[in-house]
């Protein structure tokens, strides 16, 4: 047999002694990497919005917003209030989780007033007559350093100080 080139070890480099399982490690890791985009197709990493409707005798509230987000994403949350009875002074109150690590780009239509309600963001919508709807569009951007798993985003619909609907939701923000 001709001289083996320098630094080649035949057992290791030709017979692959001790390296036979390397290929399976490589394939397993590649499968894991390939699994990420497949999982992403199922909206695990965001940002497709989901819709939830809550109904009370006085009103219904439909929330259309993503619950899985990533740093830097621009997204919209839509609050669709339908009055089943006359709501004299409707408020959408957002828990602090809505603004934590987020930039609020715009709220349309502009609420009658904005205030802090014991640390929550209170948006006054005003009078909504029975049978009428009010759609509040809020546009956000996730701050790049914002990371959250299971952060609470509570929404209250109130008439003055009377709570009509409470909705607890959670968001995940991936880095």
């Amino acid at each position: 047999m001709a001289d083996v080139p320098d630094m080649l070890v035949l057992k290791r480099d030709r017979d692959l002694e001790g390296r036979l399982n390397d290929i399976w490690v490589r394939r397993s890791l590649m499968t894991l990497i390939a699994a990420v985009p497949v999982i992403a197709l199922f909206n695990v990493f965001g940002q497709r919005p989901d819709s939830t409707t809550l109904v009370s005798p006085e009103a219904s509230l439909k929330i259309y917003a993503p619950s899985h987000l990533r740093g830097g994403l621009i997204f919209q949350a839509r609050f669709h209030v339908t009055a089943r009875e006359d709501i004299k002074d409707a408020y959408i109150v957002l828990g602090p989780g809505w603004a934590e690590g987020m930039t609020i780009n715009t709220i349309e239509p502009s609420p009658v007033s904005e205030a802090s309600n014991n640390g929550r963001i209170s948006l006054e919508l005003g009078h909504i007559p029975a049978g009428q709807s009010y759609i509040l569009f809020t546009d956000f951007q996730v701050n790049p350093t914002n990371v959250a798993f299971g952060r609470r985003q509570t929404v209250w619909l109130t008439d003055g100080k009377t709570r009509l609907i409470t909705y607890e939701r959670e968001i995940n923000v991936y880095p």
Partner: protein
Amino acid sequence: MDLVLRAIALFAFMYLLTRVMGRRELSTLEPFDLILLIVLGDSIQQGLTQDDYSVTGAVIAVGTIAVLQLIVSYSSFRFRWARSFLNGDPIVLIQDGEVIERNIKRERITREELAEQARGQQIASLGDVQWAVFEPSGAISFIPKK
């Protein structure tokens, strides 16, 4: 701090990717590979610096990657086990003119591709090859028979 962590995570991911994809994919640079490379760089950059347009941010990101690359390079120089893990080991594809089927299959190389590579080094027949070695860089070295 976030920038450093992001740079470490992306460096590790890219390193892992290049290791598990196999050296064959990395050894050629066809026009499409070149486009992919640019797209890859752009995607990585957005995740790395995001909305940070500062010189400080760029220095932190580039500095972190440089340090990581130095660590990888030094580890591979200093430790044999790290060299195998980080760079891989060579694989003998031909010995005494005989193609080692198991090894070419493992690296997804066909006899035709092997012959093409040999022709590129002025070797007309694989039977004239004493040793062909698939190097960790992705290149195939041919040593002709004397």
